C-alpha cells in the first residue's frame, strides 16, 4: 500500500482514538469543579463524596488521554516530516505552548486532586480543581489553534517554499479558531455530562447511592440540555464560517455538485463522488441557502466551481457531517425529555428514561468523531488548506512497511488499552462512591 495513505490511516487512527479522552475531560473537570465549589461553600460531605468519585474516573480517562497524546506530539516528525519542515515555523509553537501553559498545569494539579486531599487545605484543593478545569480547557484551545491553522491558515507568508510566521495572533486566532474551539468545548461538555447522567441513571435503576445519583443526574442533565441547545448555534455559526472560508468543504458536506441559487439542504443521501450523483437523495429545498445566507435564493457554490484536483472527497464528509447533525438533534430531544420529566417530577421513577440515558453514554463520542472526520477529510486534498498538499506532507524516508508495522502495533496496543480501560471504568462505576450512604433519599 501507498506510504502516504498508510500514514494518513495511522494519524487518523491514533488521533481519533486520542480524541475519545480530551472531550470527556472537559465535561468531567467542569462537573468536578462545580461539586468542589458546592463543597467549599456548604461543607456538606455529600459533595465531597461525589467529587472524589468523579476524580477517580477522571484519573483513568486522563491517563489514557496522556498515553495516547504522547504519540501525537511526535507523529508530525515521525510520519509527516515534510509537513514539519514546511509549516513547523507556525505549527510547532502552539504545541510547545500547550506543554508550557496547560499540560504541566493539568498534570501537576491532577496529582494534587488524586493524591492530595488530606495534604492540602480545603481552599487549595478547590483551587487545584479549578486549575485542572482551566488547564484542560486551555490545552484544548492550543490544539484547536494548531488544527484550525491547517483549515484556515493566516498570519504567514510563503518564503522559499516554506510557510513563515508574519503575525502570531493572526495565525493563532485565524478565521476558524474561535468557532471550532467553542464547538469542541460544547461537544466536550455534552460528552462529559452524558457520561455522568448515564452513570447516575444506572444507580437509580439499581436503587443504589440514591441521594448522590439524584444530585448527579440533576446537575448533569441541566448541563447536557443547555450545551445541546447552545451547540445548535455554535454549529450553525461554524457552518456559516466553513461556507465562507472553505466553500468546497461545505459543498462536500451537502453533496452540492453544481452551484445553485436556492441550494437545498440534504436530509439523506448516498453520494458517489466519482460519478457526482447522490442516490436516494432527500432534500429540503432552498434550506441550505437560507441557513448560510438567511436568504432562500442565495447562491451557494457547488463542487463544479473548483478544479478537480482541489475537490475534497464527498462520501465521508457528507455522511459523517450528517450523522453528527442527527446525533446532535438526538441529544436535544433526549435532554429535553429529561427536563420535561424533571419539571413534572417524574424523572426519578422513569426507568425507561434511565435506560435511554445509559444507552446514550457513547453517543457523544460518535458525534465527536464524525464531526472530526467531516472536518479533516473535508479539508483534503490539503494538509494545510491551499498551502500544502497531504501527498507532499509525508516523510519521504519512512518506508510503507514500517508505517504498516507500527500501525498494526498501535491497533493492538490501543485495543488492549480500550478493553482494559473500559473494564476498569465499569468496575469503578459498579463500586460507586467509596463513602457509605448517609440517610440518602
Amino acid at each position: 500500500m501507498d506510504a502516504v495513505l498508510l500514514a494518513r490511516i495511522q494519524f487518523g487512527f491514533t488521533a481519533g482514538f486520542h480524541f475519545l479522552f480530551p472531550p470527556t475531560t472537559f465535561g468531567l473537570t467542569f462537573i468536578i469543579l462545580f461539586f468542589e465549589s458546592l463543597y467549599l461553600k456548604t461543607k456538606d460531605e455529600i459533595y465531597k463524596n461525589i467529587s472524589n468519585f468523579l476524580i477517580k474516573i477522571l484519573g483513568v480517562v486522563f491517563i489514557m488521554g496522556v498515553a495516547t497524546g504522547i504519540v501525537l506530539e511526535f507523529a508530525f516528525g515521525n510520519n509527516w516530516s515534510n509537513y514539519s519542515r514546511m509549516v513547523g515555523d507556525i505549527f510547532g509553537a502552539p504545541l510547545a505552548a500547550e506543554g508550557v501553559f496547560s499540560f504541566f498545569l493539568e498534570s501537576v494539579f491532577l496529582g494534587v486532586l488524586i493524591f492530595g486531599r488530606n495534604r492540602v487545605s480545603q481552599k487549595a484543593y478547590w483551587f487545584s480543581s479549578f486549575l485542572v478545569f482551566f488547564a484542560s480547557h486551555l490545552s484544548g484551545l492550543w490544539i484547536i489553534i494548531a488544527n484550525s491553522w491547517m483549515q484556515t491558515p493566516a498570519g504567514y507568508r510563503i518564503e522559499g517554499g516554506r510557510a513563515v510566521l508574519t503575525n502570531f495572533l493572526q495565525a493563532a486566532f485565524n478565521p476558524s479558531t474561535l468557532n471550532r474551539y467553542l464547538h469542541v468545548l460544547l461537544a466536550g461538555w455534552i460528552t462529559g455530562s452524558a457520561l455522568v447522567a448515564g452513570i447516575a441513571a444506572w444507580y437509580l435503576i439499581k436503587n443504589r447511592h440514591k441521594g448522590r445519583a439524584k444530585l448527579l443526574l440533576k446537575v448533569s442533565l441541566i448541563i447536557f440540555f443547555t450545551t445541546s441547545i447552545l451547540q445548535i448555534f455554535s454549529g450553525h455559526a461554524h457552518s456559516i464560517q466553513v461556507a465562507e472560508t472553505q466553500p468546497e468543504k461545505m459543498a462536500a458536506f451537502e453533496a452540492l455538485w453544481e452551484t445553485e441559487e436556492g441550494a437545498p439542504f440534504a436530509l439523506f443521501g448516498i453520494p458517489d463522488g466519482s460519478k457526482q450523483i447522490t442516490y436516494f437523495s432527500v432534500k429540503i429545498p432552498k434550506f441550505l441557502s437560507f441557513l448560510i445566507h438567511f436568504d432562500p435564493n442565495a447562491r451557494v457554490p457547488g463542487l463544479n466551481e473548483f478544479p478537480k484536483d482541489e475537490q475534497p472527497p464527498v462520501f465521508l464528509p457528507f455522511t459523517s457531517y450528517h450523522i453528527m447533525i442527527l446525533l446532535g438533534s438526538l441529544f436535544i430531544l433526549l435532554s429535553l425529555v429529561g427536563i420535561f420529566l424533571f419539571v413534572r417530577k417524574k424523572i426519578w421513577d422513569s426507568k425507561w428514561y434511565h435506560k435511554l440515558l445509559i444507552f446514550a453514554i457513547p453517543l457523544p463520542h460518535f458525534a465527536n468523531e464524525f464531526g472530526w472526520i467531516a472536518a479533516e477529510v473535508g479539508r483534503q486534498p490539503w494538509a494545510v488548506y491551499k498551502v500544502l498538499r497531504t501527498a507532499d506532507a509525508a516523510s519521504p524516508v519512512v518506508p510503507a512497511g514500517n508505517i504498516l508495522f507500527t500501525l498494526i502495533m498501535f491497533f493492538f496496543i490501543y485495543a488492549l488499552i480500550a478493553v482494559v480501560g473500559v473494564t476498569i471504568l465499569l468496575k469503578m462505576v459498579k463500586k460507586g462512591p467509596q463513602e457509605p450512604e448517609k440517610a440518602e433519599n
Partner: protein
Amino acid sequence: METWDLLRNIWFILIGVLFVGYSILDGFDLGIGSLFPFLTRRKGDKETLYKVIAPVWDGNEVWLLTGGGALFAAFPHAYATVFSGFYLALMLALFALIFRAVSLEFRAHDLKRQRLWDGAFFVGSLLPSLLFGVALGNVIQGIPLYTNMDYAGNFFTLLRPFPLVIGFFGLTAILLQGSSYATMKTEGKIQEKSIKIAQKLWVAYGVFMVLSFVFSIIYIPGASKKVLAWVFTGIIVVCLILMKFALKKKKDGLAFLLSSLSFCGLWGIAGAIHFPNLVKASNDSALSLTIYNSSSSELTLRVILIIALVGMPIVIAYTTYLYKVFKGKTREEEKAY
C-alpha cells in the same frame, strides 16, 4: 551578533534546559521503574515505591512533551530529521511510554493482572531510558544525511559503538537518579536496598563515564579541545566523589542533589561538544543540521521565547509546590485517595 542568531543560540540552550529538567525529574521515576524488580519483592514495599512516583510522574513526563514541542517550534528540521529518521527506534520508545503511562493506573485497578502491569511498567521504563541515550549518541556522532536533510541510514546504522555506549551510560545515570530518589523518599529495608543499589550504580557510572570519555575522544573530532566540556567533566567528577560520601553517610537528600547536578554536567558536555550542530552529518559535514540552517524564523523564535519566559517560571513554581505537598518519606499505609 545578529538578533536572529542570538535567538538561535538561546534556543539551543533552552532546549538543553528542557532536557535537563526532563532527565532530573522523569529520570528518577524512569529509574525507579527500571529498578523495580531489583529494589523489592515485598508487596508492601512495592506499593510504597509506587506511591513515591504516582503523584508526580505525569508532571515529570510533560518535560519530554514540552521539549519535543519546543524542538519542533524552534528547530523544525531537526525535529523532522530525527523523528522520521529514527522511526522504528523512537516508535519503540513511544510504545513503551504508552504502556508505562497506562500500567501505573491500570495496576491499581486491575488487580487480577497486576503482575502483568507491573511488568509493563518495568519494561516501559527501561526501554526509553536506554533508547534516549542511543538516539543522543547518534545525533552527536553524526548520521548519514541526504542533501534535503533527511536521514540516509537505516535502523542498524543506529547501533554503532559510540551511541550504544552513550545509551548505556544514559541508562546508568537514570538508574542512579532513580535509586538516589528512592533512598531519599523511603526508609527501613527498602532504603537500605536502594543505597546498596546506588553504590553499585555509582561504580557502573564511573566505568561508563570513562568509556564514554574515551569513545568521545575517538569518535568526536575536536571534542578534547572544548574547554566547556572539560569544565562540565570536572563538575561531574566532583559530584561523583561527593556522592560516594553522601551515600555512605546516608545523606540522602544530598545524594539526590548531586545525581541531579551531574545530569546538568552530562547535558553540558553534550551541548559543548555538539554546538552549534543539532544533527551532525557523518557523510559530509556540510550537510549537518545546525542551529543556523534548521531554525524557525526570527519572529517564531521570539514568540516562543516570550512563551517560555512567561510560562516556565510559573511551571517551576507550582512544580516546587507539588513536591512540597508530597515531601517527606512515603509510607506504605498512607491512603492514596
